[in-house]
Every structure is written in structure tokens, then in C-alpha cells.
């Protein structure tokens, strides 16, 4: 168990945004909230999955909602803590720790907010190792763990427990509907996990990974060194392409932000170009009509100068970007894992070939 410092939470916000692979929502509000809690004396402890007993109960939290609504309504740390307490009331037992469903984006910080109020530690793990748009795109779903129950909380005193759902997809549908009724924003506590389940199916050390990435970027910027080289070194990533954005095309369909961006090479990549498709997150990188990287490998589009991640919602013409790949969690590289999060799960009839040698 280790206590996270103020520097760690700043780094986590930077790293979680990188692991958001273009989506996951900005961690900015969560960071502001956590800074305030730290100023008031709260501290959050991080534990490794090995520190869990097999029969410990672990809460899994996330915020569901539309980015536009989050901009206006924000998310209150007490709400995410309440989602956990409501689950404890439903189960009639206490949680030993709390963890993230997705480390990428703002949701990577939600367990820390809950933990600061509840006085329990955060597990250094999540179920995506990045960000994905839907509930069945998790290692827990790949492991065929139970998708229920789920608590969904609105600040006006409305609380819903979904006690049963037939499948992960049903849970996604029903919980999404509840969220819409709440005004398209809800704090949720997903199906609780046992220590044994987290050890078997959780993706370990992703909070630490995000913190390390953030420290690498912050430290490189302090020393006026290359932040992207620091990222690649910190997480054995691969530099794919450096260039500038020359085209962005977006459309919202079925609740997804879909589109494509074209990046034209600069420096060593001069005269070449790549295209990246997105569905909330970056999904496939194409070069001369052939896929060169695809989900589940992490595709991160970074500001070439600052190393800061660029989101699919905000990328625009003229930005200088460096595209890198980071390795996916092992659990998604199996045939079953690829069924959940491989290119075909996003509607692409292509095979997954990792850029990282197995």
C-alpha cells in the first residue's frame, strides 16, 4: 500500500488522458475535485491486486453520461461515493477497496474521489487498460463475470439498482436508459468483484501506469526535453507517425462520435500520410489503404510539443501531432478478448495484428 502524493494525482490526470486514446472524457473536473479534497487533508492509498484477499469485496466505479452534460453539471465526488454506499446497502456488506472500470480519461480518477470520502484504498487495476465506449468492452466481460448488480445515482435523490441483467449488453442498454432519464449523467457502481476475480480478470497496475506516464510528461516538460520520447520510454511504446492534421470529419451516430482524421507527415515522415478512424476513441490507423494499428492496441494522438493527449472531440486542422501505440492488456489479445474489443467489434472486417511482437 502506498499513499498517493499531490504530484501523483496531477500526473494521473495527464496519464489517464493519454490512456483515454482520444476518448474517455477529460479528467479536468475530477482533478479539480481531487485537488480540493487533498487541500482539505484527504489522502488516497493505492494497493496492489496481490494485497487483496480472495473474498474481499471490491467496488467498481465510473461516471456515465454525455460530454456536453458533464461540462455543465460536472460530477461531484460525493455522488460517486454515494454510488458505492448504495451498493453496500444493496449487498449488505462493506467494500474493502474501490477500482476503476476504465483507467482512460476522467473515469480513471473516479475511484480516487470515492476513496477520499469512504476511507478505503484504491486498487491499482482497471478492466480496460484504456477507455472503451461500452460496458461489454471490459476484461470482466471477457471473463464472463456477472454484469450485475449496478447502482446508478442522480444528485436529486434518485437512485436505481439494476439487480439483474441477462447479459453485459442488456446491462449496457438498461443502465444507459436510466442515465438518459437522469439528464444523461449518472454516477455508477458496477457489478462488485471479489478479490479473486480482480486478481484473475483485472488489468493490473494501470493506475501506476497512468501516473508514470504523467510523471514522464511533466518531468520532460520541466527539463525542456522531448515528452514523447519520455512516454515511449516509460511504457515501451512505439512511435508511429509525426505530422500535422490536415482533415477532420465528425458525425454523431447512435450516440457515438464517429469520424476520421488525416495526418500529413513532417520530418522523417514527410511525403507520407495516415488516416485514423475514431468511434469516441481512436480505433484504426490506415496507411496507403492498409490498417497499420488497430484496437485493442492503444492508439494515442499526442501534441508533438507538449506530449499532451489530443481528444477525438477537439482535434483540429493544423495541430502538430505524434501518433504512438502502447501495448494492449494481454486479456484482449485472446480470440475471446478480440471478440469483445477487436476491430470487428467496431464494425471493421479486418484482422487484428499487434504492432508489438508477442
Amino acid at each position, binding site marked *: 500500500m502506498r499513499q498517493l502524493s499531490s504530484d501523483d494525482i496531477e500526473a494521473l490526470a495527464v496519464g489517464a488522458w493519454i490512456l483515454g486514446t482520444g476518448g474517455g472524457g477529460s479528467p479536468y*473536473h475530477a482533478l*479539480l*475535485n481531487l485537488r*480540493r479534497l487533498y487541500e482539505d487533508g484527504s489522502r488516497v492509498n493505492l494497493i496492489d491486486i496481490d494485497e487483496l484477499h480472495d473474498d474481499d469485496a471490491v467496488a467498481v466505479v465510473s461516471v456515465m453520461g*454525455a460530454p*456536453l*452534460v458533464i*461540462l*455543465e*453539471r*460536472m*460530477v*461531484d*465526488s*460525493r455522488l460517486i461515493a454515494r454510488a458505492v454506499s448504495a451498493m453496500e446497502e444493496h449487498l449488505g456488506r462493506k467494500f474493502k477497496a474501490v477500482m476503476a472500470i476504465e483507467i482512460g480519461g476522467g473515469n480513471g480518477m473516479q475511484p480516487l474521489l470515492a476513496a477520499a470520502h469512504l476511507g478505503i484504498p484504491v486498487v491499482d487495476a482497471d478492466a480496460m487498460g484504456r477507455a472503451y465506449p461500452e460496458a461489454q468492452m471490459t476484461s470482466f466481460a471477457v471473463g464472463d463475470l456477472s454484469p450485475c448488480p449496478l447502482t446508478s445515482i442522480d*444528485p*436529486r*435523490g434518485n437512485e436505481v439498482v439494476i439487480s439483474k441483467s441477462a447479459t453485459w449488453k442488456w446491462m449496457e442498454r438498461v443502465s444507459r436508459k436510466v442515465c438518459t432519464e437522469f*439528464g*444523461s449523467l449518472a454516477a455508477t457502481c458496477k457489478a462488485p468483484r471479489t478479490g479473486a476475480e480482480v486478481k484473475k480478470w483485472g488489468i493490473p497496475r494501470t493506475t501506476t501506469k497512468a501516473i508514470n506516464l504523467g510523471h514522464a510528461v511533466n518531468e520532460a516538460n520541466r527539463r525542456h526535453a522531448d515528452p514523447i520520447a519520455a512516454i515511449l520510454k516509460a511504457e515501451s511504446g512505439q512511435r508511429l507517425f509525426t505530422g*500535422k492534421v*490536415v*482533415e477532420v470529419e465528425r458525425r454523431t451516430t447512435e450516440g457515438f462520435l464517429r469520424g476520421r482524421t488525416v495526418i*500529413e507527415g513532417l520530418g522523417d515522415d514527410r511525403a507520407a500520410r495516415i488516416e485514423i478512424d475514431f468511434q469516441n476513441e481512436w480505433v484504426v490507423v490506415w496507411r496507403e489503404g492498409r490498417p497499420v494499428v488497430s484496437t485493442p492496441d492503444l492508439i494515442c494522438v499526442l501534441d508533438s510539443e507538449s506530449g499532451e493527449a489530443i481528444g477525438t472531440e*477537439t482535434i483540429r*486542422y*493544423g495541430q*502538430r501531432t505524434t501518433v504512438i501505440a502502447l501495448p494492449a492488456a494481454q486479456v484482449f489479445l485472446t480470440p475471446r478478448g478480440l471478440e469483445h474489443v477487436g476491430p470487428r467489434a467496431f464494425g471493421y472486417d479486418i484482422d487484428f495484428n499487434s504492432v508489438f511482437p508477442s
Partner: protein
Amino acid sequence: MRRIGIDVGGTNTDAVLLADGKVVQGVKTATTADVTGGIVAAFEALKAVSDFGSGIDALMIGTTHFINAVVQRRNLTKVAAIRVALPATAALPPFTGWPVDLAKLANGGVWQIEGGHDYDGRRFMPLDIAAARAIARQIRERGLKYVVVTAMFSPLDASDEATIASILREEIPGVSVTCSHLLGGIGLLERENAAILNASLIALAEEAIRGFEHAKSRIGLSAPLFVTQNDGTVAEASRAAAFPVYSFASGPTNSMRGAAYLSGIEEAIVVDVGGTTADFGHLRLGFPREANAVVHVGGVRTLFRMPDLISIGLGGGSRVDLTSNTIGPGSVGYRLTEQALVFGGDTLTMTDVGVAAGLIDLGDRRRVANLRAGDVSSILHRAKEMIEENVDRVKADAGDVTLIAVGGGAFLVPENLQGVACIKRVEHGGCANAVGAAIAQVSGEVDQVFQGSTRSEAIATARKLADGRAIEAGAGPETLIMVEAEDTPIAYLPGNAMRVRVKVVGDIKSRTPAEALPG
């Protein structure tokens, strides 16, 4: 039609006289610590070289005074901030994320109450009127005069902000209320930040505008006073005093508008090279393209309509380092005429490089005769690369563009640039900012929700309202044109609800000869 445009910058105060659409004369004077003095001096300098004929129809002033106050942390007033969004958002109260020193100067107290709306126009919580009244009394007891009201989703439904503003006016004599929906779109924290900055600057803005009025009467002008805005239009002095943040970026905006006017080109990239920085912007229909993202002002995240600009450390006063072949970002600024080599100083600046290369004739040429030709050309090459890169950054899409080069340092912009089809240089380009102020038009805006009408009916109604507002603000009715029309359907509201935003602009109405007489 004669107008005077004055741009009060950090270093120079520029003034131009415009008669029947032509620049008659332009002058540059040094900015003074007291606002009035510099304006009077610029006016006197202008008067000395030009004929005001039958009098002046309008005086337009652009100033960087308000944004400088935020950046330099001075002359800010304490503000009471009321947030209408409980039980949501309580974890991030007003002033969250502000630099500590700035919050200390501006934070007069925060209050949060229930109310506000949802994204689909439904009410989020009933508005807690009783709490609002109790808060108004507390604010009165604390002696606070500047209040900000921010309600959840107020850009879609501003009624809660309006209700609370009227309660505040009932309870607190002489209160000044800034409602957030007048200052920004969706993004509660950023919109609230903009509103707080605005409220904390109103006292300063009122004082500055009294100074402008005072200067105007000292120089014997009876013409109405207008203050230029971020969007390239002008507001009457009283409105400008209530919305100082809308003048934040008027300097660069005026330069871009002036560049468009002087060149007759409405679609182009503009580079304004001054003493310390070069500002790059994108002209569309003769107006600067607006940023659609968060803008940081003095370390505070805000979200209101500002021109999308890139500013880099490249200007006539930029310091040059030959060993590393780098330019700026440091500059000798207004000390150029003491410190640059050609003026007898000992600092190598971009002006010296320009003189050595024969791009401009200033000061004493002989003092740069020993600069090596190779060094001069590699520094100029560096400047060229910086300009090329940033022209490209402000473009909206690929393809070659027209570049208009203005400002005192425009000689640093070379003739051939990658990504640029042609470069326009214009007469009076050194005073493009004052020209931009002088030509500024009046706007009228409407942003409201319509129900039960078709899209075209709603836009037509909004247009009529916007026209009325522009005429009220001083526009000639026959000159009005619609420059923006935007409609967004709102789901879950009955009767085809849509939010319509319309903006019209028009020329300031000519005054009759009798009205225009001096004094």
C-alpha cells in the same frame, strides 16, 4: 462621414482619421500611464496634420487596458458569486481552479442554491427564491456591489439568472449584476469564470470610460464614443463598461479588421508584426474567426467568444542571438529607439537585422555594417520558418492562402512563403489597428429559444429582434446585414423547440451636419 479611430496599446497609441471610407491620416504616439493623456496626445498629433473639415461623426477607441488588469493583477474588484445548480456541482464551487493570487483579489464570497435546467430544456430543480432573497441581503450587508449569477444550462434557458438578477436589484441599491449566459456558452465553470472576471473589471471599465469621455471633451469632440469589441464591432460606451471582457482581444481584432479594410480582402490570413509579438489570425467575411475552445486569461479558464489567434515572440524589437540562430521571445519593446544597434544601443534586434539586409531604412545603417551576411540571412530564414509554420497553424484547411502583412514589423515578412499564394502589404498598414477601430460597425444579437414556429419563421423573428437591437445601438437601418444565423433543435421540448442565434451588423448612422459640428 468622418471618424477617428484610436487604439491604445501597451507601447503605442495609434490614431487615424477616416473620411468617407478613406484613411486621411495616421499617427503613432507613446502610450501614457494615464489613459486620458495618451488619447489626448494622439488626438492632438492627428489634428496637427489633418483637416477635420465639417467635424467628426464618431470616436472609436480600442484598448488592452482590461485584459492587462487581469494579467497584471491590478484594479480588480471583489465579486459575490451565486451558483444556481444545487444539488449538483457543489464539489467545484466558484473560483475553483483559479490562480490563488487572482482569487484572493476577486473573491468576495460564494453562494450556491437550487435551480437551473437540464440539457433538453427541462427544469433541473425548482428555483429556490427564498434562498436567493436571503443571499441578496447577506451580500448587501457585506457591502458587495458586484455580483455574478451562474445557472446550470443558462445558455439554453436564462430565466433563473434573470429572476435572481431582479431580486438582487430589489434588495441591493446600486448593485451591478453580471449574468453568465451573456458571457459564454455551455461549460459552467468556464462561463462562470468569464462572468466573474467581467464583474471584477466593471469598476475599472467605468473609470476608463469616464477617462475616454473626459479626453473627448478636452479635445472638444461632441461625437458619440464607442469602444471596440473582441468580435470587431463596437459597443456604445455604457454597454462596453458593463462588459469589459468583450474588449479583451479588441487590439488584435482591430488589426485584422483594419487589414481586411485596407486591402479590400475578406478571406485571408493576417499577420500583425509589432514590436514584441507577431499575431496570426484568420479572416472570414472580413471578420476574425472565433476560437471554439477554452481560452486562458491570466491563468483562468474561460469560454467566451474571442478571435482564434496565435501569438509568437517575433517582432521588430525581438532580441536576436546569432550563436544559436534564435529570435526572441524577449524584446526590447518600447526601448527600441534606445537599445537597438541602429539607434546607438548595444542590443541586436530584428530591426537591426532588417536594416542590415536592406529591408527597411531606420537609424544609422553603418552601425550594423559589420554583421556578417551569412548570419543575417540565416536569422531571416529562421523568421521565415516561424512565419510559415504559424500561417499554417491558423489555416482552417490545406491549400495556399493570401497573407496580409500589417504592423510596424511587417518588413520582416518575406515575399515568398510556403503555403502562401500571395502577400499583400497595404498603405497605413502600421496603423491597421486604429483603422480597424475607425471602421468598426455596430452589431445586434439575439440568442433565444423559439417554440411553435418553423425554422425560417424563427430565424426571421430573431433577425427582426437583432435588427432592432443594432439600430438601438446606433446602426443605420439600411446598412444592416445578417452575418450569423444558427439554429439548434432542442429535443424533449414540445412544439418544435429550437435555439436560434442571429447576429447582424451595420454601419454607424451618419449624423446630420449640425450634429457633427465640433464642440
